[in-house]
């Protein structure tokens, strides 16, 4: 099969859930799996990844695996330097998983993966200077210049969420105070909503009722739902988050001057309730406004699966590159030599892995298709 038509697997590893899918070259998801993230032990996470891939592989021919992970991924896209919600510390994830699966693996920061898919298939298509901001629990970021992800020297560029926007502001888990993600993320929305409810303010009536009287039950989607129904306080809460979003985007525009900002992540479900105040604050705080062209601010179109699709597509690129190095490259550089060694190791691992799987299938065909640990039913 031509590589350009081949399927790949994308795996999005979040703090609580692992979401995986089989993705075709047009970014369509053909099959899905979800399960809880084993957060304690790096080995368990690897096990989970291997199980998921074997399960999906039993139904589809795939050529590579892309893993999107929340955390610092090194410049060679092979190790996770640090992940705030997982046990990874300088974890050589790529090689470990490649050894087990015999498939080429790419590890990428989750926000980078999501941005990649927005550029390939979503709201950022055709943009030469694209900046993506993913508003989830925290804030993820990515910079794409002429279709190339900017990773920086150590692989950890684009961590916009930790720009300081308020000196001595809210404490952040990164160790600082006043980080942007303490003001413009899902966490910030929830914190503000809970604080309002806890203050006993009568304006929080609807919010409290939605949370069955317990302020601690209030969450971001709840606020968004209420705002969509026109609850004035929920609208205000999103306005405040939107304003902080716009202020931070103005900083990013000063530094990066993109043509378009794509805003994704769970909080962006609020749509214009969030983006309209963001645009207003952006226009109001942008440096040199009136004397310079301004970036567009649009919503991401791919939804929560952007990271999975992006990781899968990056895996396809990597597999294609490895193939090209093996078949065509004549000039041997350190990079191509490493790629050839990697290909050889992969082929060896693939043979071993195939043997293991054939044996396993013969013994327990049913268990292979519906592994006990997996919630294998595809989602709608």
């Amino acid at each position, binding site marked *: 099969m031509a590589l350009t038509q081949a399927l790949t697997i994308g795996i999005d590893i979040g703090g609580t859930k692992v979401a995986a899918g089989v993705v075709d070259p047009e970014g369509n998801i053909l099959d899905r799996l979800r399960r809880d993230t084993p957060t304690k032990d790096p080995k368990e996470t690897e096990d989970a990844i291997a199980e998921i891939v074997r399960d999906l592989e039993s139904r589809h021919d795939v050529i590579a695996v892309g893993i999107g992970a929340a955390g610092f991924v090194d410049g060679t896209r092979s190790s996770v330097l640090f992940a705030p919600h997982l046990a990874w510390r300088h974890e050589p994830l790529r090689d470990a998983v490649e050894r087990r699966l015999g498939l080429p693996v790419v590890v990428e920061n989750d926000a980078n993966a999501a941005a990649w898919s927005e550029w390939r298939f979503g709201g950022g298509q055709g943009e030469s200077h694209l900046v993506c901001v993913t508003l989830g629990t925290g804030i993820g970021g990515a910079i794409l210049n002429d279709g190339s992800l900017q990773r920086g020297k150590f692989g950890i560029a684009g961590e916009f969420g930790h720009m300081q926007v308020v000196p001595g502001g809210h404490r952040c888990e990164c*160790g600082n105070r006043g980080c942007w993600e303490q003001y413009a993320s899902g966490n910030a929305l929830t914190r503000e909503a809970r604080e309002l409810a806890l203050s006993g303010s009568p304006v929080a009536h609807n919010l409290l009722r939605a949370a069955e009287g317990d302020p601690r039950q209030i969450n971001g989607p709840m606020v968004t739902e209420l705002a969509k129904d026109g609850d004035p306080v929920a609208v205000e809460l999103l306005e405040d988050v939107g304003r902080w979003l716009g202020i931070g985007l103005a900083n990013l525009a000063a530094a990066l001057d993109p043509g378009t900002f794509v805003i994704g992540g769970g909080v962006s479900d609020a749509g214009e309730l969030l983006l309209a105040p963001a645009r207003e604050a952006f226009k109001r705080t942008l440096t040199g406004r009136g004397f310079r062209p301004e970036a567009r601010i649009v919503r991401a179109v791919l939804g929560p699966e952007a990271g999975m699709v992006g990781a899968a597509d990056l895996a396809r690129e990597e597999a294609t590159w490895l193939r090209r190095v093996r078949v065509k490259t004549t000039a041997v550089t350190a990079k191509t030599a490493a790629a050839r060694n990697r290909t050889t190791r992969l082929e060896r691992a693939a043979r071993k892995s195939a043997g293991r799987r054939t044996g396993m299938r013969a013994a327990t065909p049913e268990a292979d298709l519906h592994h006990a640990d997996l919630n294998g039913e595809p989602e709608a």
Partner: protein
Amino acid sequence: MGLTIGIDVGGTKIAAGLVGPDGTIGARTHRDTPANSVDETAAAICDAAAELIAGHEVQAVGIGAAGFVSADRSTVLFAPNLAWRDEPLGARVAETLKIPVVVENDANAAAWGEFAFGAAKDVEHMVCITVGTGIGGGVVIDGELLRGEHGVGAELGHMRVVPGGHRCGCGARGCWEQYASGRALVREGRAQAESGSLAAAQMLSVCGITDPAELTGPMITEAAAAGDPCAVELLDDLGRWLGEGLASIVTLFDPSVVVIGGGVSAAKELLLKSAQVAFERNLPAKANRPHPSFGLAELGNDAGLIGAADLARRPVTAARA
């Protein structure tokens, strides 16, 4: 030969030099900047360049100018200190001199100078700030100068660091350059002197002045170098703002090296030490990530000129007349 001309257009002076491919400056000349007239400024630039071109084989001219320069590196969209508004400077100068001309933001040009021949010559990823009256920024990613979609990227001095903070000339409040530039240094020094502080009075006498309004940045730096405690503190505070701001910027670009240049960097260790402490202290997730190195610029006032000249040598896209 491969000679190009670099021209640094400042608010008061136009400095020009003939630069070789290794970044060395041969001949130099300068003109006063006729700040209020667009035509006269262009004429002065052409005049200075023509003087250097005479008798040499010159490939191209690079002009570094404070302001927003369009993505095609030809038009100055807006300049804060000069009368340029959508000024086709590159085309104008190219027409007069009959030679390719590239226009670049002055801080970008200075950053490129440091990247090509100075403090960052051995790396591929750099953030450079030029701390003068304001703060200029230049960013190199994978060996390429960051310009952005419209050419106006890397305006790092206008990132907001204090909500509702000091008013900035750009129209916003709380911009970084209101806290970490030469202007901020002087403002704080004068404010302290006007508050009647004894330490500040002592600083004024070290500087040999009595009126706080006469205080300048270089005076403060000199007093600090002589050990005056008030001046040392002022530079210390400035360094802290610098370091904190740079920590945020490093989260965006993840460079190998951070370079600090511009007039205020003449304070050297007096500024750099507190900047570095604040930087290391404020780098997000600092225990779990590699840290970039941190250093002073090496080319001094010539960085912009050398950088502009070298950029003129690189492929020109649309900047021809």
